[in-house]
């Protein structure tokens, strides 16, 4: 329950786990860009092998990746069906009104499905092998250039890490309030949609109140421990870019260039 935001971290000590979160983020972003430049089956095969390699080196069972796929299944299916029936082409296999299944449509639909599949596998690889906090640290590093446009990067990073830290606490709080309201006769699980939405009000308002209380307490504690703003702070947690990160990046860039030309 408490790993809600960034998916499900799978503890481990594999090669992929030990890669720098910045590297994993960069590779993910590059990957999404590269995947739209693919032209033929061989390119998909190569990128597919890259992903497969990552999965193998992560030491995480493929089952967890398939689980990551499940919430996206309907979106994939919907897009694939659209592509399949609404792409006109020269070789038509089947037609009924505006619905056409053509050779081009079939190929496009398969490509789209493959793109989805690969992107989801790649991002699941990131979330399964990287702790949420490390992802937040990596993000902070990558958005540093935005300081130039006056974005308070350090504050944003602290906010992110505090938000992550309080997810389980707010979950607890929600359960507590739900139980308290159930004891007073609120029914969260039955009735019409309208009734159920209405039942959420006695949940949301106390939850909001208690969040504000927590925020006030936390602010007091932070100020009393000398927090002013993000500037002039030193860092306890640091990221270490190692040789294996450079090599992995180099390898990925070479593969990317190879498939794009």
């Amino acid at each position, binding site marked *: 329950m408490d790993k809600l935001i960034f998916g499900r971290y799978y503890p481990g000590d594999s090669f992929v786990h030990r890669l720098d979160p910045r590297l994993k983020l960069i590779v993910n972003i590059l990957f999404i860009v590269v995947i739209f430049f693919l032209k033929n089956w061989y390119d998909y095969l190569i990128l597919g092998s890259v992903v497969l390699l990552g999965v193998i080196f992560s030491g995480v069972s493929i089952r967890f990746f398939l689980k990551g796929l499940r919430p996206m299944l309907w979106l994939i299916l919907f897009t694939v069906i659209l592509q399949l029936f609404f792409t006109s082409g020269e070789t038509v296999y089947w037609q009924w009104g505006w619905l056409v299944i053509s050779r081009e449509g079939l190929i496009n639909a398969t490509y789209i499905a493959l793109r989805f599949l690969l992107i989801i596998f790649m991002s699941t690889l990131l979330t399964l092998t990287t702790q949420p906090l490390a992802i937040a640290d990596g993000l902070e590093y990558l958005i540093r250039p935005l300081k130039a446009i006056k974005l308070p990067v350090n504050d944003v990073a602290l906010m992110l*890490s505090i938000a992550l*830290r309080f997810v*389980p606490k707010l979950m607890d709080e929600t359960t507590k309030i739900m139980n308290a309201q159930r004891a007073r006769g609120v029914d969260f699980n039955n009735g019409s949609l309208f009734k159920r939405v209405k039942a959420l009000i006695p949940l949301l308002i106390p939850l909001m109140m208690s969040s504000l209380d927590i925020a006030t*307490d936390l602010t*007091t*504690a932070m100020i009393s*421990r*000398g927090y002013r703003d993000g500037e002039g702070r*030193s860092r*306890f947690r640091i990221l270490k870019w190692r040789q294996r990160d450079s090599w992995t990046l180099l390898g990925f860039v070479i593969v990317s260039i190879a498939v794009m030309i």
Partner: protein
Amino acid sequence: MKLTPIIEVRDVTYRYPYAEQPALDQISLQMMPNQWIAIVGHNGSGKSTLAKTFNGLIEPQSGEIYFDGQLLTEETVWDVRGQLGIVFQNPDNQFVGATVADDVAFGMENNGIPRDEMLVRVEAALRQVRMWDYRHQEPARLSGGQKQRVALAGVLAQRPKVIILDEATSMLDPQGRSEIIDLMSQLRAAGDFTIISITHDVDEAALADQIFLIDDGHLIMQGAPDEFFAKSDELHDHGLIEPLSEQIRGKLVASGINLSNKYLDENQLVDELWTLHLNM
């Protein structure tokens, strides 16, 4: 040579926004360094408000605060916050870091202490509160008492002159509570700092060198535990009950048993009782 009080409060008045009564009303007091000081009073007496004025979390409408002889102002307040650490009541709502070690480092990060120094101090502080083995844990996996020990480590890592426990044990189970109190006794024996514990638990207050009783924003009385608890009438008037040993002593004296006329802790009371008719 006259000692400089570590904290001196002069004529401080503070009224919360929209409140009719001031929470602190022309209060003045002095606290001496390297003592264990307890501030007692019932809920709403103003004792926590008082503590919040010490490091500028609350800015009084009138009056002055001196920290180690230095007047608390907008310029000095950050310096004071580095030297005065507070452990608050709610273990969850003061845990800033994502892990135990991160949380201990938070205060040092704010003061720009270099990372190498932080690593050393985090380890030392966590070992002091016996939480080093938990350094990679997330707060959700810790008990209330463990979280308070981490909060205490965060304060210790800043090397403060004053540690304030603002009802820090009131949300803990008896075991967590005694862990914190034991820890404070050990710390006091080991280091040189002033401990201020704000509490309505008289047994906790009885461990102090000096006790201040606050009510309605006034200082009612102050003294060492033996004189302080002997004034049971005043205590009752302000919503407090003396410790169990003092209640027993009072009842024994009332029924004509000749005991010494001052507060005795449990051991002293037992000793006095069993030696009462000893003719040696």
